[in-house]
């Protein structure tokens, strides 16, 4: 039996990122931060980011959760870096749509996020994959409030 097939959820990319996330950690200096949590299962994602020239320069997350949640947070880091706030919402929309529909969007900036398309088949796991994005959206929202306030 081969559980980890390519169209499968627990493929090596996801497992790699779950075991050794590249963006895990805690920024001491940051421009925006937010936390997302799912009390139903105890998953929690804390996101901090620093900007460079109006774009996200560094993104770090501290994630306590399942493999899906950790890898989703980490792959989000790859995709978010270099983006402006407005682009983030667009990307998050596309990601959330992929989780709901299972259809991988045809866009270059999606990078390895496509690895998570298989979450689609597990409705009760959708939250695990989208929680990091919810935190990122909240972090950006708060920065904007600060800027306007």
């Amino acid at each position, binding site marked *: *039996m081969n*559980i*980890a097939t390519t169209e*499968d*959820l*627990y493929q090596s990319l996801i*497992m790699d990122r779950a*075991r050794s996330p590249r963006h895990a950690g805690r920024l001491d200096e940051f421009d925006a931060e937010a936390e997302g949590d799912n*009390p*139903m*299962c*105890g998953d929690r994602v804390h996101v901090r980011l620093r900007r460079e020239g109006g774009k996200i320069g560094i993104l770090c997350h501290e994630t*306590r*959760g*399942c*493999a*899906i*949640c950790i890898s989703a947070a980490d792959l989000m880091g790859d995709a978010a870096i270099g983006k402006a706030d407005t682009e983030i919402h667009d990307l998050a929309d596309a990601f959330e749509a992929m989780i709901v529909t299972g259809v991988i969007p045809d866009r270059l900036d999606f990078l390895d996020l496509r690895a998570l398309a298989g979450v689609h088949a*597990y409705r009760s*796991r959708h939250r*695990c994959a989208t929680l990091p994005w919810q935190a990122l959206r909240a972090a950006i929202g708060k920065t904007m409030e600060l800027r306007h306030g």
Partner: protein
Amino acid sequence: MSAAVHQVGFDIERIRADFPILTERVHGKKLVFLDSAASAQKPRSVIDTMVRTMETRYANVHRGLHWLSERCSDDYEAARDKVAAFLNAAREEIIFVRNTTEGINLVAQTYGRSALKPSDAVVVSEMEHHANLVPWQMLRDQHGIDLRIVKITDAGDVDFDDLERVFTDGRVRLLAITHMSNVLGTYTPVARLAAFAHERGAKILLDGAQAVVHRAVDVKAIDADFYVFSGHKLYGPSGIGVLFGKYALLEAMPPFMGGGEMIRSVSFATSTWADPPFRFEAGTPAIVEAIGLGAAIDYVDSIGFDAISAHERRLTDHALATLATIDGVTTLGRAQDRGGVVAFTLEGIHAHDVATLLDKQGIAVRAGHHCAEPLTRRLGVESTARASFGVYTTLDEIDALAVGLRRVQQVFGR
């Protein structure tokens, strides 16, 4: 291997043949259903009884003078008799509700608001399902009672020293506690708890959602004031549950909901209430479901609780022993007296991932806090996976779980 181990009189293959769903395949694999504590599967006799009712004897109950309504009312009331016999109660003490949750809310909102004063205290334990915690929190916030939590020991038993402590000021009027924990498997010593409460002037409500599935329950022998359970965990239909209450208590309680059936007489100005149990069954009840629950009780009676308890004991022992052989697996709960649920964690692997990866092998377990979030926190874990057993569970299925868990560890490189 398992068939041979089973004692005479418990023919597991015949029992499995009674449950149509067990032959289903999941992701191309044989279904291994280890989630009965969440909701049990239904034997053909329950399904057939529901179908026969709808195809040959259905009409609204109680209000009709015609043949179908009389027959359907007979069947509905016969189900009440079966539940009464099942718990060793009188039929007037049996109220049909949707589920355990509604039963407890009913007591909180009627007994709670009428018999408890704001200065009175209600005690629940640290290992309650949300169904036996949140209704009392709501009563506290609405009505001002004091809600107290009695601790459990590290083994997962009720801490009687702490129970003494929470009762010392003499203000406790109700002990609302589980008969069997859905996470730790602990059976609580219900007769002792009832005596303890009664000696101190308190009533006792028992959440029997799990216990009633595995053991014969005698509310008279226990001396329970209220006992609650759900049909869907007892191989019965969804949408039906039972509240038992001692008649004298029920008689003094105001109704929970108003409407048809629960009244004696209605005028625009005022209404008078029917006697229990009807006072607490407003509107058209879950007719077919109550009748189906009667069939479920017949079904478990036909196997017998001696056989069911012994089977469960064997499965639980085997599960605890087998899981102990896997590195990185920790089982929760070490109560002396425990029933057929085994919650566990895998080192370094989140319970959600465990459940999803087992599912891909056809093995259904539950993962999360099992609606006992404060308990999970008390145990210092975020979430756990849980395997739970029914009459149809085999020792082979527990072996399949063990194999499945090793595969999960492989995927995680452990």
